[in-house]
């Protein structure tokens, strides 16, 4: 426990403690506002649409907020020194080596994905996906007020992405990953000699298939390759299949093929992320060998 508290109170980790509380608070806060708006059938903001003078009403709020923020910042800066460790030394690698906290969600994904996915493809998709949001969400409702009822899918998907895939992974990466990036529960000692008991296998090697990824001579087993390809490509073809089934609905017609393609690709990627994480975690909890790759190819592994 001692060690957990130490990590928790490391100066550079304080922001994550703030993150924890503010994210929970604001989620709850937005949720109650949305519930209220949904229940009464019209947004509270609609009752506050009379115009007020910016001076003094808005400037006053800004002024007070400025004072509050500056007060917090100055107190924070007086009580807590920014870290300055030993001078840079290339021959002394700390274990674990961690990126700054806001990238730890991505570093955590390195457990489940190869660097080209976790470090390059996913960040790119996050940025592009975020930018695409206004253009793929064609639901005109819920513009300018809190609501859940009128845009369930959007709110659920975004909250899942932000709260679970971004924030939760940051917490795990910061607080629960020790030497060798091994998982330690709070209170458990960070043992640098810890060795994982279970060895990772590939999806095709799992029971009941038991198809080895590599042949005895070390070359790739075609059966495993094909199985992996079917899994990955089959998963992404759920998008087109769903489209074939519902393409004639009014909603799909309004959405259009390009928007639909973007939404389904991004959505499936997000779900796929979760599936891959669970393929690792569930067997581990059951004491089985966790899955490393779904699809092994000569050029890249997924």
């Amino acid at each position: 426990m001692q060690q957990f508290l130490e990590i928790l109170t490391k100066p550079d980790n304080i922001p994550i403690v703030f993150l924890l509380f503010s994210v929970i608070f604001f989620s709850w806060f937005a949720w109650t506002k949305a519930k209220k708006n949904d229940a009464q059938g019209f947004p509270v903001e609609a009752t506050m649409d009379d115009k007020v003078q910016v001076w003094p009403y808005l400037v006053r709020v800004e002024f007070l907020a400025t004072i509050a923020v500056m007060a917090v910042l100055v107190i924070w800066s007086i009580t807590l020194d920014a870290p300055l460790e030993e001078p840079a030394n290339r021959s002394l690698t700390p274990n674990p080596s961690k990126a700054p906290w806001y990238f730890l969600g991505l570093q955590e994904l390195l457990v489940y994905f190869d660097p080209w996915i976790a470090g390059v493809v996913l960040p790119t998709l996050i940025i592009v996906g975020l930018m695409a949001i206004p253009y793929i969400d064609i639901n005109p409702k819920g513009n300018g007020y809190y609501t859940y009822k009128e845009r369930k899918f959007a709110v659920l998907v975004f909250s899942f992405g932000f709260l679970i895939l971004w924030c939760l992974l940051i917490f795990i990466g910061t607080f629960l990953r020790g030497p060798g990036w091994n998982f330690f529960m709070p209170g458990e000692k960070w043992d640098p000699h810890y060795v994982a008991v279970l060895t990772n296998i590939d999806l095709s090697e799992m029971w009941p298939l038991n198809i080895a990824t590599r042949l005895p001579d070390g070359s790739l087993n075609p059966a495993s390759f094909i199985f992996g390809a079917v899994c990955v490509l089959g998963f992404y073809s759920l998008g087109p299949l769903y489209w074939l089934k519902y393409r004639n609905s009014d909603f799909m017609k309004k959405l259009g093929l390009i928007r639909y393609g973007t939404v389904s690709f991004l959505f499936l990627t997000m779900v796929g992320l979760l599936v891959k994480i669970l393929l690792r975690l569930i067997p581990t909890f059951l004491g089985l060998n966790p899955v490393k790759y779904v699809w092994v190819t000569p050029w890249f592994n997924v």
Partner: protein
Amino acid sequence: MLEAFKKTEVYKSIFRHSYQDTQRNRALQIVDNVFLHLHPVRVPRHATNIGYTWGMGGITFLLFLVLTITGIILMFYYRPTAQYAYEDMKYLMNDVPFGPLIRNMHRWAAHAMVLTVMLHMFRVFLTGSYKPPRQFNWVVGVLLLVLTLLLSFSGYLLPWDQLAIWAVTVGTNMARATPLLGHEGPFGPELGMQPDNDVRFVLLGGTEVGPPTLLRFYVGHCIFLPIIAAIFMAVHFWRVRKDGGISGPETPKKA
């Protein structure tokens, strides 16, 4: 004395109007001030409600201003070379009056800014404020988010201590694996990528985090990224106004 001063041409040339509490003066207070005229003269009441905006955009901007000021002060004491960087930090923390306070404020404001920009985005999403006509301002926002992260990340290296180089090493190691452009990425080697000619090499100015990296990150952190971020912020604020001010529900009464 003060009354007499208020009658002089100097005073009038600066303030232009009296401070009597009239509707007209309240409006002039905004439009006659270069800083405040970022605002409209009047806004819908809910826009002044912290419960609606959480004030997170404004706080993010405030933190950016704090960072600019403290950052400039830090630049007086810091030399971006492997030889001096760490020594300068030590000197700043131990011998410069208020040195630790300035450095701490810079660092904590930077962390706080990453936090508030994320919360700002969360709020904008939950109020659906990216919907027409504000689609493009959301895109500008995403760029600001990326710039904020890059600013924070590039600053992380500058103390040149163990924490700094290893965090940046871990972060930039990803670039090796860039598909096509990294020497360990899919199809990278096939395209002739090696440790000394791929994207990571360009980023670091070498095959590992070294003195050239420090200089690169310093220039990016103190000049390039802040200027770009400031330009995008200008666009962002301008768009907030041009898109009809703070978002709010459609109401029949609304002008």
